[in-house]
């Protein structure tokens, strides 16, 4: 997939754990793990909004596009 989720970087900057972030966003630890490990196939705008709110960042800080080779 060409879209990558750089959750690790923002989580390290804000010093927040996976479980804590999952609780703030309102999704399960399992789903947060799916997102963090790059297994997610799609993300809802509502989830993205919650993530940006919890991490105090922009969507562009979390999502990165790379051309598939």
């Amino acid at each position, binding site marked *: 997939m060409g879209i990558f989720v750089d959750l690790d970087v923002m989580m390290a900057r804000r010093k927040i754990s996976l479980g804590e972030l999952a609780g703030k966003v309102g*999704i399960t630890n399992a789903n*947060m793990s*799916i*997102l963090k490990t790059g*297994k*997610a*196939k*799609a*993300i809802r705008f509502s989830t993205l909004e919650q993530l940006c709110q919890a991490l105090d960042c922009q969507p562009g800080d979390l999502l990165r596009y790379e051309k598939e080779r």
Partner: protein
Amino acid sequence: MKWDMKHSVMLSRVFIVFFAILLLGVDVAGFLRVSRSWDLEDVIQPSQLMWIRICIYACSVPAWAALWELWQLMGRLSRGQVFTSETVKLLRIIAWCCFIVAAISFVCAGGVHFSVIVISVAAALMGLIVRMVKNVLEQGMAMKNELDYTV
């Protein structure tokens, strides 16, 4: 009694058992040379009777296999495992069992009577319908996979 999916699956299982009993009856009847007790020897020639037996026993194998796979399928449905690769595999096997029966009865039609080809056509059509259902379930599986990984 409220009719729901659980009861529907149970009814399907009852039909499978009923069909298995029928199939067992056919297999035993073929062995017991039913034609003599039914006075069919005036109508059916010995060579035709041999082809009928060949058809019955050769078709029995894929029929029993299909019944077993159907039973497994009902088990999976009762556990909520609908859109899975295993379910798709079971449907694929059932479809091929139908096609095998179609092929066997097509060959036997030559030895028994041309009208037996109707069984071949019916079995082939059933196999085709099961394959279509398998394709639909495959699409459903892809959609479920997409949904499961939507955060």
